[in-house]
């Protein structure tokens, strides 16, 4: 077939159609199928090309509608960033803070990981998240750290489902979500006998509190809280109901201890 030109092929097809009318329907269907394949196929027929083309459209839209229409803002951002917020959100594709909280470029330093976890201070194991918190607090001087959990979180479901009996079924996931173990323990104690779905919802919120507590183990976070240059908030986005809960961590000192005394005591308690 490939040796003929396409004109010859069309002629042959026409002749076949006139001789065998009953083939018309199946031939038409075949032509439609081939046309569709040709439309989506790229030079080597990779399905990813359509996805990448989508990104190009997205970027061009951003450049035309946002970047070029706000030259002053983007010129300032090119010089540096001074976001007010640091947000820790889940990697889930449905919960990007740019959508849910309408964060514009320059407003929020955003860390995203499975189940929006903040592990306790550990420079060896968790340098990634530690680097982000350190950079946000010490260099960018953010005012708020907001940890946002969400409904139907796969990571939290994993935490609630994994047996943690010495066996593992994943390379890294079980180890990572184990950070939320205090939440699982509390939820199982308070919600014994409830269905898994209910337990997961409770755990999604409680794990946010575990992360907020873990943030307190970072000395620069504590200093910021004590100096009132930093505040911690927890959030919960329920995309099934369309609600957002927000709460703050109360961090109080009272006289007669001075700030220096409390910082020393905290240092003693945690090390």
């Amino acid at each position, binding site marked *: 077939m490939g040796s003929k030109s396409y004109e010859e092929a069309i002629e042959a097809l026409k002749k076949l159609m006139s001789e065998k009318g009953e083939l018309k329907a199946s031939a038409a269907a075949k032509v439609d199928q081939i046309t569709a394949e040709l439309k989506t196929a790229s030079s080597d027929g990779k399905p990813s090309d359509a996805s990448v083309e989508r990104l190009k459209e997205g970027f061009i839209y951003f450049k035309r509608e946002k970047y070029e229409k706000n030259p002053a803002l983007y010129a300032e951002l090119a010089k540096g960033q001074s976001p007010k917020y640091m947000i820790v959100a889940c990697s889930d594709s449905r919960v990007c803070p740019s959508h849910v909280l309408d964060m514009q470029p320059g407003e929020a330093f955003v860390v995203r990981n499975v189940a929006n976890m903040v592990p306790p201070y550990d*420079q060896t194991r968790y340098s990634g998240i530690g680097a982000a918190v350190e950079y946000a607090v010490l260099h960018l001087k953010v005012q708020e750290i907001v940890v946002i959990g969400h409904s139907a979180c796969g990571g939290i479901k994993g935490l609630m489902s994994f047996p943690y009996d010495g066996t593992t079924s994943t390379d890294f996931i079980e180890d990572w979500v184990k950070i939320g173990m205090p939440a699982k323990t509390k939820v199982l104690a308070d919600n014994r006998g409830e269905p898994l779905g209910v337990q997961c919802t409770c755990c999604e919120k409680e794990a946010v509190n575990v992360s907020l507590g873990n943030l307190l183990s970072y000395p620069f976070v504590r200093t910021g809280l004590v100096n009132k*240059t930093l505040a911690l908030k927890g959030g919960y986005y329920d995309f099934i109901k369309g609600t957002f809960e927000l709460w703050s961590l109360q961090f109080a000192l009272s006289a007669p201890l001075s700030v220096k005394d409390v910082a020393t005591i905290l240092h003693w308690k945690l090390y």
Partner: protein
Amino acid sequence: MAWLIRSKARLLVSATRPLRAPVDSFHCSRFSDLTDHSVFSFPRKWLRSKARRLNDVDDNQSGSSSSPHINRRTTVSQLEVSSNSRVRVDLFDELKQRFLSFKEHKYFREELEHFQTLKEAQSPKFMVIACADSRVCPSTILGFRPGEAFMIRNVANLVPPFENGPSETNAALEFAVKTLEVENILIIGHSCCGGIQTLMSMRDDGDSSFIKSWVTTGTVAKLRTEAAANHLSFDQQCRLCEKESINRSLLNLLTYSWIEDRVRKGLLFVHGGYYDFLNCTFEKWTLDFKGSSGEEGARLLVKDQELWC
């Protein structure tokens, strides 16, 4: 010492009672004693009128944000307690307005059907690894809608190799590739990256910090940049290192057997991207698996290079 910190931190976390003497006068409130606890869920009519008022607020905000205040703020510790709580309430209120705007415009109106589907499950085609920098959210610059991209954001968009052991980045990689079965992984770097700058200016002076511990993942990129471009200015070297680091991370992806396997079979495609916000351009390239290797002396071959501007 690390386990001590962890166990002590756990004590702190689970404490729903004030810390014992000698710190009686210092306490964290019980987590269940929620202060300033707001649930944002309002009837539609109210939302619509609020949305109209929000448009005015947005105009004001965009006006003021056209020249954002970048200089160092004066310390807020000098503020009175009452005015400080007023500032905090304002920031609270701000987040609330934003959520309600999202709910009104996107969740209910523009994309209701889309959101109904997402309630059941997510099936993103992309996994994106991007920097935590506030200026480079991929949802904004590439227009990802909810449900389209599973996203990791960390300092300097680094992917450590398999042999570095567990981290937040590879847990997310495992979830995306094995559970969600994404078809594409896209690592996006950007210009003026603070993490890369730290990497390039780091010296072995024994001074440890989290940032330094983390960005050493990119040391190979730094060495290659210095070897190839020592004659260039520091800024120019940083620009090159930003791109070299993406390529190193792309190769590090191949050190994960479940990624390499899928790439070899043509089930998964791996791409690099570079967002230059000085010129507003986006460069994109795809890993040519047949020409690359993940072992010692790894080399990278790319194809389908494009520059969008």
